[in-house]
Protein backbone atom coordinates (compact mmCIF):
# COMPACT_ATOMS: atom_id res chain seq x y z
CA UNK A 1 0.00 0.00 0.00
CA UNK A 2 2.76 2.37 1.06
CA UNK A 3 4.89 1.48 -1.95
CA UNK A 4 1.85 2.14 -4.12
CA UNK A 5 1.44 5.62 -2.67
CA UNK A 6 5.11 6.50 -3.21
CA UNK A 7 4.86 5.24 -6.76
CA UNK A 8 1.74 7.31 -7.33
CA UNK A 9 3.33 10.49 -5.96
CA UNK A 10 6.45 9.95 -8.02
CA UNK A 11 4.50 9.43 -11.23
CA UNK A 12 2.22 12.38 -10.46
CA UNK A 13 5.29 14.60 -10.00
CA UNK A 14 6.72 13.41 -13.32
CA UNK A 15 3.40 14.02 -15.02
CA UNK A 16 3.17 17.52 -13.58
CA UNK A 17 6.75 18.26 -14.62
CA UNK A 18 6.12 17.21 -18.20
CA UNK A 19 2.84 19.12 -18.44
CA UNK A 20 4.32 22.42 -17.22
CA UNK A 21 5.67 23.57 -20.61
CA UNK A 22 2.33 22.85 -22.25
CA UNK A 23 0.50 24.82 -19.59
CA UNK A 24 2.89 27.71 -19.93
CA UNK A 25 2.43 27.75 -23.72
CA UNK A 26 -1.33 27.59 -23.30
CA UNK A 27 -1.32 30.52 -20.89
CA UNK A 28 1.03 32.52 -23.09
CA UNK A 29 -1.06 31.87 -26.16
CA UNK A 30 -4.12 33.25 -24.40
CA UNK A 31 -2.55 36.56 -23.41
CA UNK A 32 -2.43 39.78 -25.27
CA UNK A 33 0.85 40.24 -27.06
CA UNK A 34 1.70 43.33 -25.02
CA UNK A 35 1.34 41.49 -21.73
CA UNK A 36 4.03 39.00 -22.59
CA UNK A 37 6.83 41.42 -21.99
CA UNK A 38 5.47 42.96 -18.79
CA UNK A 39 6.05 41.30 -15.44
CA UNK A 40 3.11 39.44 -14.01
CA UNK A 41 2.01 35.92 -13.21
CA UNK A 42 3.31 33.77 -16.07
CA UNK A 43 1.15 30.81 -14.93
CA UNK A 44 -2.21 32.49 -15.13
CA UNK A 45 -4.05 34.99 -17.30
CA UNK A 46 -5.92 38.07 -16.15
CA UNK A 47 -8.36 37.86 -19.01
CA UNK A 48 -9.03 35.12 -21.53
CA UNK A 49 -7.84 36.59 -24.80
CA UNK A 50 -8.40 34.32 -27.81
CA UNK A 51 -7.17 36.84 -30.32
CA UNK A 52 -3.99 34.89 -30.87
CA UNK A 53 -5.95 31.90 -32.19
CA UNK A 54 -8.58 33.79 -34.16
CA UNK A 55 -5.82 35.88 -35.65
CA UNK A 56 -3.94 32.77 -36.70
CA UNK A 57 -6.91 31.12 -38.30
CA UNK A 58 -7.97 34.29 -40.05
CA UNK A 59 -4.51 34.28 -41.57
CA UNK A 60 -4.59 32.40 -44.88
CA UNK A 61 -0.88 31.66 -44.71
CA UNK A 62 -1.28 29.77 -41.45
CA UNK A 63 -4.02 27.63 -43.00
CA UNK A 64 -1.68 26.86 -45.89
CA UNK A 65 1.02 25.83 -43.44
CA UNK A 66 -1.39 23.46 -41.73
CA UNK A 67 -2.45 21.92 -45.03
CA UNK A 68 1.15 21.61 -46.22
CA UNK A 69 2.11 19.96 -42.95
CA UNK A 70 -0.80 17.53 -43.22
CA UNK A 71 0.22 16.66 -46.77
CA UNK A 72 3.85 16.12 -45.77
CA UNK A 73 2.82 14.07 -42.76
CA UNK A 74 0.42 11.77 -44.59
CA UNK A 75 2.79 11.38 -47.53
CA UNK A 76 5.78 10.61 -45.31
CA UNK A 77 3.95 8.12 -43.12
CA UNK A 78 2.35 6.25 -46.04
CA UNK A 79 5.47 6.06 -48.21
CA UNK A 80 7.66 5.12 -45.25
CA UNK A 81 5.38 2.34 -44.00
CA UNK A 82 4.88 0.87 -47.46
CA UNK A 83 8.55 0.93 -48.42
CA UNK A 84 9.75 -0.31 -45.02
CA UNK A 85 7.26 -3.17 -45.00
CA UNK A 86 8.21 -4.32 -48.48
CA UNK A 87 11.93 -4.03 -47.78
CA UNK A 88 11.60 -5.82 -44.44
CA UNK A 89 9.61 -8.60 -46.07
CA UNK A 90 12.23 -9.16 -48.73
CA UNK A 91 15.10 -9.08 -46.26
CA UNK A 92 13.36 -11.38 -43.80
CA UNK A 93 11.84 -13.99 -46.08
CA UNK A 94 13.30 -13.93 -49.57
CA UNK A 95 16.77 -15.27 -50.09
CA UNK A 96 18.59 -11.96 -50.25
CA UNK A 97 22.33 -12.52 -49.90
CA UNK A 98 23.85 -10.90 -46.79
CA UNK A 99 20.40 -9.71 -45.70
CA UNK A 100 21.48 -9.41 -42.08
CA UNK A 101 24.39 -7.15 -42.88
CA UNK A 102 22.28 -5.15 -45.31
CA UNK A 103 19.87 -4.21 -42.54
CA UNK A 104 22.78 -2.98 -40.45
CA UNK A 105 24.17 -1.02 -43.39
CA UNK A 106 20.81 0.69 -43.87
CA UNK A 107 20.79 1.53 -40.22
CA UNK A 108 24.32 2.86 -40.37
CA UNK A 109 23.18 5.53 -42.84
CA UNK A 110 22.01 7.50 -39.78
CA UNK A 111 25.66 8.02 -38.98
CA UNK A 112 26.12 10.12 -42.12
CA UNK A 113 25.86 13.76 -40.99
CA UNK A 114 22.88 15.48 -42.56
CA UNK A 115 25.03 18.41 -43.57
CA UNK A 116 26.89 16.17 -46.01
CA UNK A 117 23.68 15.11 -47.70
CA UNK A 118 22.37 18.56 -47.90
CA UNK A 119 23.83 20.11 -51.01
CA UNK A 120 23.32 17.09 -53.26
CA UNK A 121 19.76 16.88 -51.95
CA UNK A 122 19.00 20.50 -52.81
CA UNK A 123 20.47 20.03 -56.29
CA UNK A 124 18.45 16.87 -56.78
CA UNK A 125 15.24 18.61 -55.75
CA UNK A 126 16.04 21.49 -58.08
CA UNK A 127 16.51 19.08 -60.93
CA UNK A 128 13.15 17.47 -60.09
CA UNK A 129 11.57 20.93 -60.00
CA UNK A 130 10.41 20.27 -56.47
CA UNK A 131 12.16 23.17 -54.75
CA UNK A 132 9.63 25.41 -53.09
CA UNK A 133 7.04 22.65 -52.95
CA UNK A 134 6.03 20.59 -49.91
CA UNK A 135 6.49 17.58 -52.21
CA UNK A 136 10.23 18.09 -51.76
CA UNK A 137 9.71 17.15 -48.12
CA UNK A 138 7.45 14.22 -49.05
CA UNK A 139 10.37 12.98 -51.13
CA UNK A 140 13.00 13.66 -48.46
CA UNK A 141 11.53 12.62 -45.10
CA UNK A 142 10.85 8.97 -46.02
CA UNK A 143 14.57 8.56 -46.68
CA UNK A 144 15.10 9.41 -43.01
CA UNK A 145 12.38 7.03 -41.82
CA UNK A 146 12.81 4.00 -44.06
CA UNK A 147 16.15 2.67 -42.74
CA UNK A 148 14.80 2.68 -39.19
CA UNK A 149 11.41 1.38 -40.32
CA UNK A 150 12.99 -1.44 -42.28
CA UNK A 151 15.05 -2.48 -39.31
CA UNK A 152 12.10 -2.42 -36.87
CA UNK A 153 9.77 -4.34 -39.19
CA UNK A 154 12.52 -6.75 -40.22
CA UNK A 155 13.21 -7.76 -36.65
CA UNK A 156 9.49 -7.87 -35.86
CA UNK A 157 8.77 -10.13 -38.83
CA UNK A 158 11.59 -12.41 -37.83
CA UNK A 159 10.27 -12.68 -34.31
CA UNK A 160 6.95 -14.07 -35.54
CA UNK A 161 6.66 -17.87 -35.24
CA UNK A 162 8.09 -19.48 -38.36
CA UNK A 163 5.37 -22.15 -38.42
CA UNK A 164 2.77 -19.44 -38.96
CA UNK A 165 4.31 -18.33 -42.24
CA UNK A 166 5.09 -21.88 -43.30
CA UNK A 167 1.53 -23.01 -42.82
CA UNK A 168 0.23 -20.01 -44.78
CA UNK A 169 2.61 -20.80 -47.64
CA UNK A 170 1.43 -24.40 -47.73
CA UNK A 171 -2.15 -23.15 -47.61
CA UNK A 172 -1.49 -21.25 -50.81
CA UNK A 173 -0.69 -17.68 -49.78
CA UNK A 174 1.41 -15.75 -52.30
CA UNK A 175 4.15 -13.47 -50.96
CA UNK A 176 1.83 -10.48 -51.28
CA UNK A 177 -1.08 -12.12 -49.50
CA UNK A 178 1.32 -13.31 -46.80
CA UNK A 179 2.17 -9.66 -46.23
CA UNK A 180 -1.38 -8.30 -46.34
CA UNK A 181 -3.23 -11.11 -44.55
CA UNK A 182 -0.68 -12.22 -42.02
CA UNK A 183 2.35 -10.02 -41.47
CA UNK A 184 0.82 -6.55 -41.45
CA UNK A 185 -2.22 -7.45 -39.31
CA UNK A 186 0.13 -9.00 -36.75
CA UNK A 187 2.63 -6.14 -36.82
CA UNK A 188 0.45 -3.43 -35.22
CA UNK A 189 2.97 -2.42 -32.55
CA UNK A 190 5.88 -2.32 -34.98
CA UNK A 191 3.90 -0.30 -37.54
CA UNK A 192 2.86 2.11 -34.80
CA UNK A 193 6.50 2.50 -33.78
CA UNK A 194 7.56 3.32 -37.33
CA UNK A 195 4.59 5.65 -37.84
CA UNK A 196 5.38 7.52 -34.65
CA UNK A 197 9.01 7.82 -35.67
CA UNK A 198 7.84 9.33 -38.97
CA UNK A 199 5.59 11.81 -37.14
CA UNK A 200 8.55 12.83 -35.00
CA UNK A 201 10.79 13.29 -38.05
CA UNK A 202 8.18 15.51 -39.71
CA UNK A 203 7.47 17.65 -36.66
CA UNK A 204 11.06 17.92 -35.47
CA UNK A 205 12.30 19.17 -38.77
CA UNK A 206 13.20 22.75 -39.32
CA UNK A 207 16.32 22.45 -41.43
CA UNK A 208 14.85 20.74 -44.47
CA UNK A 209 11.62 22.73 -44.53
CA UNK A 210 13.51 25.97 -44.15
CA UNK A 211 16.00 25.29 -46.92
CA UNK A 212 14.06 23.29 -49.47
CA UNK A 213 11.13 25.70 -49.37
CA UNK A 214 11.78 29.40 -49.58
CA UNK A 215 8.27 30.53 -50.37
CA UNK A 216 6.35 31.43 -47.20
CA UNK A 217 3.19 30.20 -48.85
CA UNK A 218 4.49 26.69 -49.48
CA UNK A 219 6.22 25.95 -46.23
CA UNK A 220 5.18 23.83 -43.25
CA UNK A 221 3.99 24.75 -39.80
CA UNK A 222 7.41 24.17 -38.27
CA UNK A 223 9.33 26.38 -40.65
CA UNK A 224 6.46 28.87 -40.59
CA UNK A 225 6.66 29.17 -36.82
CA UNK A 226 10.32 29.90 -37.28
CA UNK A 227 9.36 32.82 -39.47
CA UNK A 228 6.72 34.01 -36.99
CA UNK A 229 8.97 33.82 -33.94
CA UNK A 230 11.37 36.34 -35.36
CA UNK A 231 8.63 38.92 -35.04
CA UNK A 232 8.48 39.51 -31.29
CA UNK A 233 5.59 41.92 -31.60
CA UNK A 234 3.31 38.95 -32.29
CA UNK A 235 4.00 36.62 -29.39
CA UNK A 236 0.38 35.55 -28.82
CA UNK A 237 -0.12 34.01 -32.27
CA UNK A 238 3.39 32.53 -32.10
CA UNK A 239 2.61 30.64 -28.92
CA UNK A 240 -0.75 29.58 -30.34
CA UNK A 241 0.99 28.27 -33.44
CA UNK A 242 3.67 26.45 -31.41
CA UNK A 243 1.02 24.79 -29.29
CA UNK A 244 -0.92 23.70 -32.36
CA UNK A 245 2.28 22.41 -33.91
CA UNK A 246 3.33 20.42 -30.85
CA UNK A 247 -0.05 19.04 -29.81
CA UNK A 248 -0.40 16.37 -32.54
CA UNK A 249 3.02 14.86 -31.76
CA UNK A 250 2.41 15.00 -28.03
CA UNK A 251 -0.96 13.31 -28.39
CA UNK A 252 0.39 10.68 -30.77
CA UNK A 253 3.20 9.92 -28.33
CA UNK A 254 0.81 9.71 -25.40
CA UNK A 255 -1.47 7.24 -27.12
CA UNK A 256 1.09 5.11 -28.95
CA UNK A 257 3.94 5.08 -26.45
CA UNK A 258 2.99 1.55 -25.41
CA UNK A 259 3.01 0.13 -28.92
CA UNK A 260 6.15 2.08 -29.65
CA UNK A 261 7.93 0.36 -26.79
CA UNK A 262 6.59 -3.05 -27.77
CA UNK A 263 7.42 -2.54 -31.43
CA UNK A 264 10.96 -1.58 -30.56
CA UNK A 265 11.30 -4.23 -27.88
CA UNK A 266 11.40 -7.08 -30.37
CA UNK A 267 14.03 -5.21 -32.34
CA UNK A 268 16.28 -4.71 -29.38
CA UNK A 269 15.92 -8.28 -28.18
CA UNK A 270 16.79 -9.63 -31.60
Amino acid at each position, binding site marked *: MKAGAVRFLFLAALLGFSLVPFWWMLVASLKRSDDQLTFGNPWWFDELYTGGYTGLFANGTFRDWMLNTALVLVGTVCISLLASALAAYALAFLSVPYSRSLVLVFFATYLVPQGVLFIPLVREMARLHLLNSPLALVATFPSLVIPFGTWVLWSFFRSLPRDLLDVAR*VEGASPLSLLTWLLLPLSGPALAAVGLFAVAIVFNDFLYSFTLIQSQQQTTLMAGIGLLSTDLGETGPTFAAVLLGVAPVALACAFFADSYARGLGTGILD
Partner: protein
Amino acid sequence: MASVSYENVTKRFAGDTLAVNNLSLEVKDTEFMVLVGPSGCGKSTALRMLAGLEDITEGQIKIGDRVVNDMPPRDRDIAMVFQSYALYPHMSVYDNMAFGLKMRGTPRADIDRRVNDAAKILELGPLLKRKPRQLSGGQRQRVALGRAIVREPQVFLLDEPLSNLDAKLRVQTRIELQKQHRALHATFIYVTHDQVEAMTMGDRIAVMRDGILQQVAPPREIYDNPANMYVAGFIGSPTMNFIPVTVNGTTAKASGFELELPRAPGVEKGILGIRPEALDEHAREGHGGLDLKVEVVEVLGSDQFLYGIVGGDAITARVDPALKVAPGDRVRLGVDMRRLHLFDTESEKALM
Protein backbone atom coordinates in the same frame (compact mmCIF):
# COMPACT_ATOMS: atom_id res chain seq x y z
CA MET B 1 -5.01 -39.54 -54.94
CA ALA B 2 -1.29 -39.70 -54.58
CA SER B 3 1.71 -41.71 -53.60
CA VAL B 4 4.86 -39.99 -52.39
CA SER B 5 8.41 -41.02 -53.09
CA TYR B 6 11.73 -39.83 -51.82
CA GLU B 7 14.55 -40.84 -54.15
CA ASN B 8 18.04 -40.55 -52.64
CA VAL B 9 17.08 -37.31 -50.93
CA THR B 10 19.75 -35.45 -49.00
CA LYS B 11 19.47 -32.19 -47.08
CA ARG B 12 22.53 -30.31 -45.97
CA PHE B 13 22.09 -27.12 -43.99
CA ALA B 14 24.57 -24.28 -43.96
CA GLY B 15 27.25 -25.14 -41.43
CA ASP B 16 27.38 -28.67 -42.84
CA THR B 17 24.59 -30.23 -40.81
CA LEU B 18 23.56 -33.33 -42.71
CA ALA B 19 19.91 -33.37 -41.60
CA VAL B 20 18.69 -36.02 -44.07
CA ASN B 21 21.17 -38.44 -45.60
CA ASN B 22 20.29 -40.25 -48.82
CA LEU B 23 16.69 -41.02 -47.92
CA SER B 24 14.75 -43.34 -50.21
CA LEU B 25 11.18 -44.05 -49.19
CA GLU B 26 7.99 -44.96 -51.04
CA VAL B 27 4.70 -44.00 -49.44
CA LYS B 28 1.75 -45.69 -51.09
CA ASP B 29 -1.46 -43.95 -52.02
CA THR B 30 -3.79 -43.65 -48.96
CA GLU B 31 -1.15 -45.17 -46.72
CA PHE B 32 -0.60 -43.99 -43.12
CA MET B 33 3.19 -43.73 -42.94
CA VAL B 34 4.84 -42.84 -39.66
CA LEU B 35 8.33 -41.32 -39.57
CA VAL B 36 9.72 -41.98 -36.13
CA GLY B 37 13.03 -41.26 -34.43
CA PRO B 38 14.54 -39.21 -31.61
CA SER B 39 14.57 -35.43 -31.67
CA GLY B 40 17.01 -34.02 -34.22
CA CYS B 41 17.14 -37.08 -36.47
CA GLY B 42 15.78 -35.21 -39.50
CA LYS B 43 12.08 -36.14 -39.48
CA SER B 44 10.79 -32.58 -39.71
CA THR B 45 13.33 -31.71 -42.38
CA ALA B 46 12.20 -34.68 -44.46
CA LEU B 47 8.59 -33.52 -44.12
CA ARG B 48 9.39 -29.87 -44.82
CA MET B 49 11.19 -30.79 -48.04
CA LEU B 50 8.08 -32.63 -49.15
CA ALA B 51 5.98 -29.58 -48.29
CA GLY B 52 8.30 -27.31 -50.24
CA LEU B 53 9.42 -25.36 -47.19
CA GLU B 54 13.07 -26.44 -47.52
CA ASP B 55 15.15 -26.83 -50.65
CA ILE B 56 16.34 -30.30 -51.52
CA THR B 57 20.13 -30.53 -51.62
CA GLU B 58 20.29 -33.76 -53.61
CA GLY B 59 17.86 -36.32 -54.97
CA GLN B 60 14.24 -35.86 -55.89
CA ILE B 61 10.80 -36.03 -54.34
CA LYS B 62 7.72 -37.07 -56.26
CA ILE B 63 4.06 -36.65 -55.42
CA GLY B 64 2.13 -39.02 -57.67
CA ASP B 65 4.39 -39.07 -60.72
CA ARG B 66 5.26 -35.37 -60.67
CA VAL B 67 8.70 -34.36 -59.48
CA VAL B 68 8.04 -31.52 -57.04
CA ASN B 69 11.61 -30.37 -56.27
CA ASP B 70 11.04 -26.92 -57.76
CA MET B 71 7.30 -26.64 -57.27
CA PRO B 72 6.12 -23.95 -54.81
CA PRO B 73 4.30 -25.27 -51.72
CA ARG B 74 0.93 -23.95 -52.85
CA ASP B 75 0.93 -26.12 -55.99
CA ARG B 76 1.74 -29.39 -54.23
CA ASP B 77 -1.79 -30.19 -53.04
CA ILE B 78 -0.73 -30.99 -49.50
CA ALA B 79 -1.84 -29.82 -46.09
CA MET B 80 0.34 -29.64 -43.03
CA VAL B 81 -0.39 -29.73 -39.30
CA PHE B 82 2.31 -28.45 -36.98
CA GLN B 83 3.08 -29.32 -33.39
CA SER B 84 2.56 -25.66 -32.47
CA TYR B 85 -0.73 -25.74 -34.46
CA ALA B 86 0.31 -22.42 -36.01
CA LEU B 87 -3.21 -20.96 -35.94
CA TYR B 88 -3.45 -17.38 -37.23
CA PRO B 89 -3.89 -15.52 -33.93
CA HIS B 90 -5.83 -12.59 -35.37
CA MET B 91 -8.41 -14.70 -37.20
CA SER B 92 -11.48 -16.52 -35.92
CA VAL B 93 -11.68 -20.29 -36.04
CA TYR B 94 -13.84 -19.98 -39.14
CA ASP B 95 -11.37 -17.70 -40.90
CA ASN B 96 -8.48 -19.93 -39.90
CA MET B 97 -10.15 -22.86 -41.61
CA ALA B 98 -11.29 -20.81 -44.59
CA PHE B 99 -7.91 -19.16 -45.23
CA GLY B 100 -6.45 -21.75 -47.59
CA LEU B 101 -9.63 -21.95 -49.65
CA LYS B 102 -9.84 -18.17 -49.83
CA MET B 103 -6.26 -18.01 -51.06
CA ARG B 104 -7.18 -20.42 -53.83
CA GLY B 105 -10.21 -18.41 -54.88
CA THR B 106 -12.79 -21.00 -53.88
CA PRO B 107 -16.35 -19.56 -54.16
CA ARG B 108 -17.78 -18.29 -50.86
CA ALA B 109 -20.64 -20.76 -50.77
CA ASP B 110 -18.22 -23.66 -51.22
CA ILE B 111 -15.96 -22.36 -48.48
CA ASP B 112 -18.91 -22.03 -46.16
CA ARG B 113 -20.11 -25.55 -46.82
CA ARG B 114 -16.69 -27.13 -46.43
CA VAL B 115 -15.81 -25.25 -43.26
CA ASN B 116 -19.16 -26.11 -41.70
CA ASP B 117 -18.81 -29.77 -42.68
CA ALA B 118 -15.37 -29.99 -41.14
CA ALA B 119 -16.57 -28.13 -38.05
CA LYS B 120 -19.34 -30.67 -37.63
CA ILE B 121 -16.99 -33.65 -37.93
CA LEU B 122 -14.54 -32.16 -35.45
CA GLU B 123 -17.24 -30.73 -33.13
CA LEU B 124 -16.02 -27.19 -33.63
CA GLY B 125 -19.44 -25.75 -34.54
CA PRO B 126 -19.96 -23.65 -31.40
CA LEU B 127 -16.38 -22.33 -31.54
CA LEU B 128 -16.33 -20.95 -35.08
CA LYS B 129 -16.46 -17.31 -33.97
CA ARG B 130 -13.75 -17.60 -31.33
CA LYS B 131 -10.14 -16.54 -31.63
CA PRO B 132 -7.41 -19.15 -31.11
CA ARG B 133 -6.40 -17.70 -27.75
CA GLN B 134 -9.89 -18.45 -26.43
CA LEU B 135 -9.49 -22.18 -27.13
CA SER B 136 -8.04 -25.04 -25.09
CA GLY B 137 -5.07 -27.00 -26.38
CA GLY B 138 -7.26 -29.83 -27.62
CA GLN B 139 -9.59 -27.44 -29.43
CA ARG B 140 -6.68 -25.69 -31.10
CA GLN B 141 -5.38 -29.04 -32.26
CA ARG B 142 -8.77 -29.80 -33.81
CA VAL B 143 -8.85 -26.44 -35.58
CA ALA B 144 -5.41 -27.13 -37.02
CA LEU B 145 -6.66 -30.48 -38.26
CA GLY B 146 -9.87 -28.90 -39.57
CA ARG B 147 -7.86 -26.33 -41.50
CA ALA B 148 -6.08 -29.21 -43.23
CA ILE B 149 -9.26 -31.22 -43.86
CA VAL B 150 -11.27 -28.44 -45.55
CA ARG B 151 -8.65 -28.21 -48.25
CA GLU B 152 -9.25 -31.85 -49.26
CA PRO B 153 -5.59 -32.32 -50.15
CA GLN B 154 -4.06 -35.47 -51.58
CA VAL B 155 -1.43 -35.72 -48.87
CA PHE B 156 -1.59 -34.78 -45.19
CA LEU B 157 1.66 -34.00 -43.44
CA LEU B 158 1.52 -34.06 -39.65
CA ASP B 159 4.55 -33.00 -37.63
CA GLU B 160 4.16 -34.22 -34.04
CA PRO B 161 0.55 -32.99 -33.90
CA LEU B 162 -0.19 -34.63 -30.55
CA SER B 163 2.95 -33.73 -28.62
CA ASN B 164 1.41 -30.69 -26.92
CA LEU B 165 -1.66 -32.55 -25.62
CA ASP B 166 -1.98 -34.18 -22.21
CA ALA B 167 -1.72 -37.97 -22.09
CA LYS B 168 -5.43 -38.77 -22.06
CA LEU B 169 -6.34 -36.38 -24.85
CA ARG B 170 -3.43 -37.69 -26.85
CA VAL B 171 -4.88 -41.21 -26.82
CA GLN B 172 -8.35 -39.95 -27.81
CA THR B 173 -6.97 -37.81 -30.61
CA ARG B 174 -4.81 -40.68 -31.83
CA ILE B 175 -7.93 -42.76 -32.36
CA GLU B 176 -9.75 -39.79 -33.90
CA LEU B 177 -6.92 -39.26 -36.38
CA GLN B 178 -7.03 -42.89 -37.47
CA LYS B 179 -10.77 -42.57 -38.10
CA GLN B 180 -10.17 -39.42 -40.13
CA HIS B 181 -7.53 -41.18 -42.16
CA ARG B 182 -9.97 -43.92 -43.13
CA ALA B 183 -12.75 -41.44 -43.87
CA LEU B 184 -10.62 -39.13 -46.00
CA HIS B 185 -8.96 -41.72 -48.26
CA ALA B 186 -5.83 -39.60 -48.33
CA THR B 187 -2.17 -40.31 -47.86
CA PHE B 188 -0.92 -39.44 -44.37
CA ILE B 189 2.68 -38.90 -43.42
CA TYR B 190 2.96 -38.57 -39.70
CA VAL B 191 6.09 -37.55 -37.82
CA THR B 192 6.60 -38.42 -34.17
CA HIS B 193 9.33 -39.19 -31.65
CA ASP B 194 6.92 -41.39 -29.73
CA GLN B 195 7.21 -45.08 -30.54
CA VAL B 196 3.78 -45.83 -29.07
CA GLU B 197 2.15 -43.41 -31.53
CA ALA B 198 4.17 -44.98 -34.31
CA MET B 199 3.19 -48.54 -33.39
CA THR B 200 -0.50 -47.79 -32.91
CA MET B 201 -1.12 -45.53 -35.90
CA GLY B 202 1.12 -46.51 -38.75
CA ASP B 203 0.29 -48.82 -41.62
CA ARG B 204 4.05 -48.79 -41.91
CA ILE B 205 6.76 -47.22 -39.78
CA ALA B 206 9.97 -45.65 -41.01
CA VAL B 207 12.60 -45.44 -38.26
CA MET B 208 15.23 -42.73 -38.66
CA ARG B 209 18.47 -41.98 -36.86
CA ASP B 210 20.91 -39.15 -37.56
CA GLY B 211 19.31 -38.46 -40.93
CA ILE B 212 19.59 -42.07 -42.04
CA LEU B 213 16.60 -44.34 -42.59
CA GLN B 214 17.06 -47.51 -40.55
CA GLN B 215 14.10 -49.67 -41.48
CA VAL B 216 10.65 -49.39 -43.08
CA ALA B 217 8.06 -52.02 -42.25
CA PRO B 218 4.62 -52.56 -40.73
CA PRO B 219 4.57 -52.16 -36.92
CA ARG B 220 4.37 -55.90 -36.22
CA GLU B 221 7.31 -56.59 -38.48
CA ILE B 222 9.42 -53.81 -36.95
CA TYR B 223 8.70 -55.17 -33.50
CA ASP B 224 9.30 -58.82 -34.34
CA ASN B 225 12.20 -58.46 -36.75
CA PRO B 226 14.11 -55.24 -36.10
CA ALA B 227 16.83 -54.77 -38.69
CA ASN B 228 19.42 -53.61 -36.20
CA MET B 229 20.07 -52.90 -32.53
CA TYR B 230 19.01 -49.29 -32.87
CA VAL B 231 15.53 -50.13 -34.15
CA ALA B 232 15.23 -52.97 -31.63
CA GLY B 233 16.06 -50.59 -28.80
CA PHE B 234 13.89 -47.72 -30.03
CA ILE B 235 10.67 -49.71 -30.51
CA GLY B 236 9.14 -51.34 -27.44
CA SER B 237 8.92 -50.22 -23.85
CA PRO B 238 10.68 -50.97 -21.58
CA THR B 239 13.51 -51.25 -24.03
CA MET B 240 14.96 -54.58 -25.21
CA ASN B 241 17.68 -56.20 -23.09
CA PHE B 242 21.05 -56.25 -24.86
CA ILE B 243 23.47 -58.83 -23.49
CA PRO B 244 26.98 -59.38 -24.90
CA VAL B 245 27.59 -63.11 -25.50
CA THR B 246 30.30 -65.36 -26.84
CA VAL B 247 29.04 -67.93 -29.31
CA ASN B 248 30.32 -71.46 -29.75
CA GLY B 249 28.36 -73.31 -32.44
CA THR B 250 24.79 -72.85 -31.24
CA THR B 251 25.65 -72.09 -27.63
CA ALA B 252 25.54 -68.45 -26.55
CA LYS B 253 27.27 -67.74 -23.28
CA ALA B 254 26.60 -64.56 -21.31
CA SER B 255 28.20 -63.50 -18.03
CA GLY B 256 25.43 -65.10 -15.98
CA PHE B 257 23.72 -67.76 -18.13
CA GLU B 258 23.88 -69.95 -21.23
CA LEU B 259 21.37 -70.45 -24.05
CA GLU B 260 21.08 -72.81 -26.97
CA LEU B 261 20.35 -70.77 -30.10
CA PRO B 262 17.90 -72.24 -32.62
CA ARG B 263 20.68 -72.30 -35.23
CA ALA B 264 24.36 -71.51 -35.49
CA PRO B 265 24.83 -67.81 -36.33
CA GLY B 266 28.36 -68.28 -37.68
CA VAL B 267 30.01 -65.66 -35.45
CA GLU B 268 32.12 -65.96 -32.33
CA LYS B 269 30.56 -63.18 -30.40
CA GLY B 270 27.43 -61.09 -30.63
CA ILE B 271 24.82 -59.15 -28.72
CA LEU B 272 21.82 -61.10 -27.59
CA GLY B 273 18.52 -59.20 -27.69
CA ILE B 274 15.65 -60.28 -25.44
CA ARG B 275 12.54 -58.15 -24.97
CA PRO B 276 11.32 -57.84 -21.36
CA GLU B 277 8.06 -59.47 -22.48
CA ALA B 278 9.98 -62.55 -23.70
CA LEU B 279 11.34 -63.04 -20.17
CA ASP B 280 8.97 -64.29 -17.49
CA GLU B 281 8.71 -66.44 -14.41
CA HIS B 282 7.88 -69.67 -16.32
CA ALA B 283 10.66 -72.25 -16.73
CA ARG B 284 11.30 -73.25 -20.33
CA GLU B 285 12.97 -76.11 -22.20
CA GLY B 286 16.36 -75.63 -23.80
CA HIS B 287 18.10 -73.59 -21.12
CA GLY B 288 18.65 -73.52 -17.41
CA GLY B 289 16.98 -70.16 -16.98
CA LEU B 290 18.28 -66.83 -15.69
CA ASP B 291 18.82 -66.08 -12.07
CA LEU B 292 17.70 -62.42 -11.69
CA LYS B 293 18.77 -60.47 -8.63
CA VAL B 294 15.89 -57.95 -8.40
CA GLU B 295 16.75 -54.30 -7.70
CA VAL B 296 13.58 -52.41 -8.64
CA VAL B 297 9.98 -53.58 -8.92
CA GLU B 298 7.40 -51.65 -10.94
CA VAL B 299 3.77 -52.72 -10.69
CA LEU B 300 1.55 -51.14 -13.35
CA GLY B 301 -1.67 -53.07 -12.66
CA SER B 302 -1.73 -55.03 -15.87
CA ASP B 303 2.02 -55.66 -15.82
CA GLN B 304 4.86 -56.04 -13.40
CA PHE B 305 8.38 -55.12 -14.45
CA LEU B 306 11.46 -56.36 -12.63
CA TYR B 307 14.74 -54.53 -13.07
CA GLY B 308 17.86 -56.34 -11.87
CA ILE B 309 21.14 -58.05 -12.62
CA VAL B 310 22.01 -61.43 -14.10
CA GLY B 311 25.74 -62.11 -13.77
CA GLY B 312 27.17 -58.78 -14.87
CA ASP B 313 24.31 -57.64 -17.11
CA ALA B 314 21.35 -55.39 -16.37
CA ILE B 315 18.10 -57.17 -17.26
CA THR B 316 14.44 -56.11 -17.36
CA ALA B 317 11.67 -58.71 -17.28
CA ARG B 318 7.90 -58.57 -17.47
CA VAL B 319 6.26 -61.00 -15.07
CA ASP B 320 2.76 -61.81 -13.86
CA PRO B 321 1.55 -58.88 -11.71
CA ALA B 322 0.24 -61.40 -9.18
CA LEU B 323 3.77 -62.62 -8.46
CA LYS B 324 4.97 -61.26 -5.11
CA VAL B 325 8.48 -59.88 -5.56
CA ALA B 326 10.49 -57.44 -3.48
CA PRO B 327 13.82 -55.73 -4.20
CA GLY B 328 16.67 -58.03 -3.17
CA ASP B 329 14.75 -61.21 -4.07
CA ARG B 330 16.13 -63.71 -6.55
CA VAL B 331 13.74 -64.78 -9.32
CA ARG B 332 14.26 -67.61 -11.77
CA LEU B 333 13.31 -66.44 -15.28
CA GLY B 334 12.55 -68.39 -18.44
CA VAL B 335 13.18 -67.11 -21.98
CA ASP B 336 10.70 -67.43 -24.84
CA MET B 337 13.17 -69.01 -27.28
CA ARG B 338 11.10 -68.09 -30.36
CA ARG B 339 11.68 -64.42 -29.62
CA LEU B 340 15.42 -64.26 -29.38
CA HIS B 341 17.46 -61.74 -31.37
CA LEU B 342 21.17 -61.77 -32.04
CA PHE B 343 23.06 -58.74 -33.34
CA ASP B 344 26.52 -58.40 -34.80
CA THR B 345 28.86 -56.70 -32.34
CA GLU B 346 30.50 -54.46 -34.95
CA SER B 347 27.76 -53.54 -37.42
CA GLU B 348 24.88 -53.93 -34.92
CA LYS B 349 22.85 -55.56 -37.71
CA ALA B 350 20.45 -58.39 -36.87
CA LEU B 351 21.90 -61.87 -37.37
CA MET B 352 18.76 -63.68 -36.22
